[in-house]
């Protein structure tokens, strides 16, 4: 490509056929043999454009006519060159404009591709978020249901508390009446046996009533129907209540539970939810151990009053690959129908709500240890 400021040569301005036509026209004007070329010939004079010799003109005529002819040719070439320059610059400018357009087009395409990818990623993210929200909703629904069952149980326990109270006191009074009756009845063998049997019945009933009363008290502590919100909690008491409830639930089995509860300060917390969390972890431990298995429950505190609760079993444990999922909602390693898969999820959420930490360590066939750290100020 010629540059704008480059000086043109004759062949840039006129084609050979055009030069021949010009030469022929000039010849017909009576100049004889006329020749215009880039080569200098004998007797030729220069034709200038832009201070530059672009060609040499010779003809069979006198010097004056030749000079006039050279001026005429230069005049023609000036306008040819003018057109040439305009065409060149127009071409250059158009090319440059087109190149710029293509560059912008490419940039636009790249940016479109970027946005397309971004939009794809966004759609993925939205899908993920929707799934998370659905899961959370399900979880919320399940935990609300669990809680309402707990509240129902607590309500029933409260209702039982009164009748069991007067049954217990009536049975005690009945025992006193039995003593009075004994004094008034004849002292023969048959009567003595009857009274002894009667006394046994009363004392067994009293025992039973006491057990019912204990269960009711545990249920009340467990669900803490009396204080629904945050209050000062005695973690050991909550654990004991959960343990009683556990033993009652597994009345058909002998559970060996080693309680090593240390001195603990009270911490602020929601007793109902903490009890539920402890119960869920204990329930998992109870299901994991065989008949001769053992559960260890430990509590301890540090200088700042933070509390650690450790619940450990020597049961079946779990494989490493499922340990990462145990806190996921609805994850369960047990057969369908034996659990909701929410136990540890609820425990984790509760501990987190108390600004605490929960950690699960497990080795297959060796057992599982769950550590819950609850801070003094949550």
């Amino acid at each position, binding site marked *: 490509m010629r540059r*704008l*400021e480059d000086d043109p040569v004759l062949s840039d301005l006129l084609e050979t056929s055009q030069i021949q036509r010009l030469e022929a026209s000039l010849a017909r004007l009576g100049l004889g043999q006329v020749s215009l070329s880039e080569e200098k010939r004998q007797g030729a004079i220069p034709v200038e454009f832009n201070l530059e010799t672009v060609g040499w003109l010779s003809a069979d005529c006198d010097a004056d006519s030749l000079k006039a002819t050279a001026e005429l040719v230069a005049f023609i070439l000036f306008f040819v060159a003018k057109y040439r320059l305009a065409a060149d*610059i127009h071409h250059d*400018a158009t090319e*440059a404009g087109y190149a710029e357009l293509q560059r912008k087009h490419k940039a636009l395409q790249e940016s479109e591709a970027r946005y397309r990818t971004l939009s794809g990623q966004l759609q993925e993210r939205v899908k993920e978020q929707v799934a998370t929200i659905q899961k959370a909703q399900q979880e919320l629904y399940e935990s609300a249901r669990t809680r309402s069952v707990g509240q129902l149980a607590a309500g029933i326990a409260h209702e039982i508390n009164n009748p069991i109270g007067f049954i217990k006191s009536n049975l005690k009074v009945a025992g006193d009446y039995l003593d009075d009756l004994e004094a008034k009845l004849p002292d023969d063998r048959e009567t003595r046996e009857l009274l002894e049997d009667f006394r046994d019945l009363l004392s067994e009933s009293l025992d039973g009533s006491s057990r019912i009363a204990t269960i009711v008290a545990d249920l009340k502590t467990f669900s803490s129907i009396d204080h629904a919100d945050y209050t000062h909690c005695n973690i050991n008491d909550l654990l004991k209540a959960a343990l009683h409830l556990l033993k009652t639930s597994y009345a058909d089995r002998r559970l060996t539970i080693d309680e090593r509860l240390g001195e603990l300060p009270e911490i602020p917390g929601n007793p109902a939810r903490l009890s539920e969390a402890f119960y869920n972890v204990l329930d998992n431990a109870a299901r994991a151990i065989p008949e001769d298995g053992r559960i260890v429950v430990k509590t301890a505190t540090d200088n700042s009053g933070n509390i650690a609760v450790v619940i450990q079993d020597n049961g079946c444990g779990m494989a490493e690959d499922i340990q990462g999922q145990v806190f996921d909602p609805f994850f369960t390693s047990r057969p369908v129908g034996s659990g909701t898969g929410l136990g540890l999820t609820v425990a984790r959420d509760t501990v987190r709500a108390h600004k605490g930490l929960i950690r699960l360590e497990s080795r297959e066939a060796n057992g599982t240890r769950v550590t819950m750290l609850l801070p003094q100020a949550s």
Partner: protein
Amino acid sequence: MADFIPEENRLNLKVVFYGPALSGKTTNLMQLHSQLMPERIGELMVLETRDDRTLFFDMLPIGLKGGHGLDLRLKLYTVPGQVQHDSTRKAVLSRADGILFVADSQRNQQDNNAMAFGNLEENLEKVGLDIEAVPIVIQFNKRDMPDTVAEDELQQRWAHTPWSPLQMASALNGTGVVETFRELLDRLYTVADQEFRLARDHGIERATFVERLSARGSDATP
């Protein structure tokens, strides 16, 4: 860039008249064409105008022969000032050796001046020229118009730039045009001498360069 062709002992230099639309770039060139009588001056070529506005460019070649036979050519170009002809402006601007910026003195044209100068900076960068290195002279034209910004104010405004002092002109009346051109030749010589050793190798001193390329009809050297 300047083009030195050793086999022909020839040096081509390119000067571009830049500036906003209708600031008088073509008028400057026409005045130079009619006022100057250097050793060699070609035809003024005015390429297509519409309503007095340049569509492509104008060109005026001038030249001189140095003492040691150097054939020195100076081609003066104008660019189209209108915003939409930016591609043409860039094409003309590329490889410029000197720039004469023709600004409009009228008060209401100051924004256009600033925009055109910004466009010059931008295009210089695009065609690979360094605004700090290219010799540039700024002329405030149209001093004959009624509402112009005072010279003092203009000089003060530009005092701290490398392009001070500014040149004042009224191209339509032919005043200040040759003076502006001479100022540019002076600055152009500094750069060209550094690169082509005009004085040492070609026997062309600063005064020769400026005077002979801008000789007026009246004071032409014999």
